[in-house]
């Protein structure tokens, strides 16, 4: 079956407009599922945060504030480039599309690279539950461990989503190299863009939740 491209509308659709409407509703439906997926974790976090504020504040103080903050900056910048990528192909500019996709990818990869370094540093600090968590560092070891479990779970899940996003960007880049997109047809770019922005929004919430709990 020929891939969707600038010239071919898939058999089940009557028009390009119908396909684009379907793509838009489809990705937003998928993002709704992601809201509930992360939402379960965020609810768990919230329940324990309310109950164990001191322990959570302690755990938060042990995280690397500057890495978290830099990463937030990096991710927001990648979102700008993603928005510019969509904007470019809306004008039909394939060259700019490729450039901005590459920039988005670079910043996204930088985020992940920095995150991995941070995980290593967390490990060195004995902050990893079940692996080498050292309760003697804390006044409230139990709730600090709960916090750190949630920290790794939430940022880990986020990192998995980032990785999938990077794969999607690669896929888009390859298709852009093949001139598959145009002013008239660039729905996949929009779809991946929406996904990327969503993952960014999740981090926007995670950042203060994890790094900025004040005692």
């Amino acid at each position, binding site marked *: 079956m020929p891939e969707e491209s600038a010239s071919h509308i898939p058999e*089940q659709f009557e028009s390009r407009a119908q396909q684009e409407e379907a793509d838009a509703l489809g990705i937003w439906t998928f993002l709704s599922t992601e809201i509930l997926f992360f939402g379960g974790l965020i609810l768990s976090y919230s329940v324990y945060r309310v109950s164990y504020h001191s322990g959570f504040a302690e755990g938060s103080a042990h995280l690397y504030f500057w890495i978290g903050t830099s990463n937030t900056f990096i991710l927001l910048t990648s979102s700008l480039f993603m928005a510019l990528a969509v904007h470019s192909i809306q004008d039909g500019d394939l060259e700019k599309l490729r450039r901005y996709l590459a920039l988005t990818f670079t910043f996204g990869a930088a985020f992940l690279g920095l995150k991995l370094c941070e995980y290593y540093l967390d490990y060195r600090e004995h902050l990893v539950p079940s692996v080498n968590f050292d309760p003697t560092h804390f006044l409230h070891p139990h709730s600090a461990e709960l916090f750190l479990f949630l920290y790794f779970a939430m940022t880990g899940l986020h990192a998995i989503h980032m990785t999938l996003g990077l794969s999607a960007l690669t896929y888009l880049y390859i298709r852009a190299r093949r001139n598959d997109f145009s002013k008239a047809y660039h729905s996949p770019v929009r779809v991946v863009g929406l996904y990327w922005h969503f993952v960014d929004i999740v981090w926007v919430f995670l950042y203060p939740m994890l790094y900025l709990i004040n005692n």
Partner: protein
Amino acid sequence: MSSASTTIEPSPTGAPPTRHPVTPDYLNDGYGLRSWLTTHDHKRIGILYLLSITVFFFIGGWAATMMRLQLLSPHGDLVTSETYNRLFTLHGVTMVWFFLIPSVPSVLGNFVLPMMIGARDVAFPRLNLLSWYIFVLGGIFTLYATISGGVDTGWTFYTPYSTTYANGHVIAMASGIFITGFSTIFTALNFIVTTHTMRAPGMHWFRLPLFVWSLYATSLIMVLATPVIAITLALIALERFAGVGIFDPRIGGDPLLFQHLFWFYSHPAVYIMILPGMGVVSEMITCFSRKRIFGYKFVAYSSLAIAILGFIVWGHHMFVASQSIYAGMIFSMLSFLVSIPSAIKVFNWTATLYKGRIHFHTPMLYALGFIGLFTIGGLTGLFLATLAVDMHVHDTYFVIAHFHYIMVGGMVMAYLGGLHFWWPKISGRMYNEKLAQFSAAIIFVGFNLTFFPQFILGYLGMPRRYPYYPPQWQVFHILSTAGASVLAVGYLLPLCYLTWSFFFGRHAPPNPWNASGLEWNETSSPPIRTNFEKLPIVTREAYDYPYPIKSDA
């Protein structure tokens, strides 16, 4: 072709929409395993699901058989307690996730929805095929967990038992369900987008068959609830793997948080299971009483109301679990509210039957059985929603009888009814009507014999999930097991005669029931791969039946 039930204008040339002689039907459009396993055709995907869920139905049924045999005697001699725990877990997991949830949506919905709205396929056919593969992958994980010895936590996986103390293949089982959840989500996504964007010209929302409304409402629930069970199962698996986690009381975790997360999904899940069946019943009741549905908009909106209200009642599973009593009161009140839209449907179906011309074809028998048994099951739900009564019957056989009346007496009968109703369209063949009616009767008798004694047992205090019991209750268990064996015969019969009819049955006309609907009036039996020779234009209302006669209405 039907006469009084057309829903389209004649085509400009005046030619009837017959099948072009060289266009093969979807069953003959390509042969061999490869053409089936790489299909994008929603109809073939429906059949792939049909085969898969039938396998799981009999696995879950086998587990139930073992349980019922164990319960024949009060001392429990057949299996050990540990094995019994694994059996009821297997029964719950396979029946909920691998049979009931996919049954109507993934089999009948996949097959019929695009035709009902006048589309050639769903919006994302490749995603549809991927959904099936994901379902199979999840099934393989679950089967692996089962064959390796299974899990003894119950399908509810309560913590901290499942995370810390259980010995069994929890991670494998949880992974299987996690994976299958994505199958559900992608199917639902497809249905939602398809219904919004691919209706034929003239097919306004309020001209849609009610089956489409119910599938749409079901899909909304699937999309919003399933991700929560996914993250919950992931958290259990992680906690079990890591040896520490957020449900662990030893570090201040709350096991009840798990229950909130679990039931936030699992209560709407029961509506995922029943809503599509209700949609099927609307189709069958109208067709076999030759009557337009009473109160179309009420029935349509009630599906949406069930979907929404179903999300805010989950705490009624936790009344005695140390949930706050104030939350309990709120959940109890909301649970009473959620019964209202279901009741509206039952009233409207009954009003549809009134002054209709009733035909007791097999699908109608299943539909009528559904209405009666679902009503009993639903009413007993109100008993359970009442805080004071629930103190007494929670975790007893009363609960088991309640949900089996709805799931088996309701949902399975609706599924079988729908399978029989659309069978001529799916297979192009007719089944043996007398044998089918006989089977429906056997199922009805077997079902009641199995589950009615369980209401009594529960009320008398028999706890659920126990492999032994005081001897004075044995007579009820014997009745129940006897019923189960009758029920098993009832289920085996359609497996045999439907399969037989697929290959050897009489060829079916395009519309053997003279039903209304695009799938009956605009397609052949079986349909061609792209469903319609020419996309229809819709100008008539949904249930274009002769009754009620205008002077009566």
